[in-house]
């Protein structure tokens, strides 16, 4: 079974590849570059193509399938057409699959299920990473604001933190937001 994974995100493509390899599939081509996409696919002649839904090149692929007839059929063809839940799961996850006609439905279904899981896992990972990043950024801002207050007002760290917290509570904002505002104001005032 030859599988092409087309994804503008090399990180996500790697996550998918790893999953496919772990289930014993080895003939995998990952395509993250736009240039030459169509010719590389034709050359590789995959049985299954997995592509992210946000990829603008999907329309280019559809043309390829219409013209070459070597590859065909969007995901709807192999899943039982009444099985809308499976289709929705794929679209929810943000993945689309094209398969060569005549492949056994169960085999394809397993691959697509795996792709769906990996896409979902990647999305979770990304949002966790974004949360971690913003938590880190917030902590940095609060630290910088504390240092600024300690210097400008000649107070110690607990007092500086208490001041930030009180200001946040009074204005109904997060401490990090108050810290941000303070740092921005300081920058605008040129450290006056």
């Amino acid at each position, binding site marked *: 079974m030859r599988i092409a994974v087309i994804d503008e995100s090399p990180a996500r493509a790697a996550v998918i590849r790893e999953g496919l390899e772990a289930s014993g599939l080895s003939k995998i081509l990952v395509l993250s570059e*736009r*240039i030459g996409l169509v010719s590389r696919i034709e050359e590789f002649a995959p049985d299954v193509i997995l592509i992210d*839904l*946000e*990829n*603008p*090149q*999907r*329309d*280019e*692929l*559809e*043309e390829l*399938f*219409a013209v070459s007839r070597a590859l*065909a*059929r*969007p995901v*709807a*063809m192999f899943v039982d*057409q009444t099985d*809308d839940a499976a*289709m*929705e799961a794929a*679209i*929810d996850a943000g993945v*689309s699959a094209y398969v060569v006609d005549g492949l056994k439905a169960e085999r394809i279904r397993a691959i697509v299920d795996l792709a769906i899981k990996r896409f979902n896992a990647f999305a979770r990972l990304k949002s966790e990473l974004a949360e971690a990043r913003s938590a880190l950024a917030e902590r940095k801002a609060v630290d910088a604001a504390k240092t600024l207050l300690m210097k400008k007002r000649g107070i110690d760290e607990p007092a500086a933190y208490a001041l930030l917290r009180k200001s946040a509570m009074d204005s109904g904002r997060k401490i990090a937001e108050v810290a941000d505002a303070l740092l921005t104001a300081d920058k605008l005032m040129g450290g006056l």
Partner: protein
Amino acid sequence: MNLNLVRLGFLPLVDAALPILARELGFAEAEGLDLRLVRDMSWATVQDRLLYGHSDAAHMVAPLAIATTLGLGRPAVPLSVPFVLGLNGNAITLRPDLAAQVTEIGGPGDIRTIGTRFAELAKARRDAGEKLRLGVVHRYSSHNYMLRYWLRGTGTDPQSDVEIVTIAPPFAADALASAEVDGICVGAPWNSVAVEQGAGVVIATTSQIWQRGVEKVLAVKQVRLEAELELFEPLMRALYRAGEAFVDPEKLDVITTIMARPEYLDGSADAIRRVIQDKVLFAKSYPSVRIPDFMFQHREAANFPWVSQAAWLYAQMAEAGHVVPSLPQYQLAQGVFRPDIYRSALGPIGATLPGASSKLEGGISGPTGVGSIQGRLILSADSFFDGQSFDPEAFIKLLK
């Protein structure tokens, strides 16, 4: 008031204006709708979401609604088009060195002459074994069919003299710059993007090929449209109001600012403003030129889904070899456009309603009064560049 949720899929193009404005200017809400717009980057994904219920309606390139109904390339799902979101707005852009060989750079020219010169160039390149490659936005797009119509009419065989490929519009400028393609036929604002990068020069607008070419439509699954008129008719009224706003010069600033926002086109407000004003930037460092009716979104019942427009598209699909022409398919294709639902949705708000559902396309050469069942309708010229007209009835004879 409880608002009914309607999700509408769209691509970030200037001709997604009516759905965007229906939401942002409050017309949807006034109709009792919570209109949510779902932005995608390919027609394939817009289509997937519509077919699998992730969206309720879609901004769609007109021939794709017909292709989906006919089951080209995937299982057939009947779609309906009760409302046209706009006419024209596309252009043909060539790499600058090629453009210089076919047109006077910087402004519009006579597109018959440009086409004839293009044909000479294309045949020379074909004979040299280096066919010109032209990118269109989708296999089943008005871009593809308008381009082919013009090529055929000026001496280029679109099947054998050139290679027509699909190119995703966001990459079109880069593809021109790297000579991956020699020309593109895309919508706004993508020609401007290529021109501003110096990667291309506009040689023609599609409105020069056909003054009233059907472009984007509102597509809905037929079963849903017919079963949920109480949801879709208010949507159509909101879109109609958005059309009135779109052609109001006083709203230009507001509209431009909304359209340029990150969640919509995420693009240059200047470029969008130009398009709305029918101004086309033909080449870098040249002033933009106003092309009357470059983008025709609302006036003269432009939102009315003429069955003859669907018929014309089917005829072009047959010419391109995308369908094997047959009478049942031709009828199925025409049935996609639903003037009956347009009338029932827009009659109550006093919109002009044409009496006929089909007309001789390209048959009007100057302002002409047309029979209407409500309001007064005067249509101006809808000519094709070659002076031909398309008669949906006559086409049936060709099928027999």
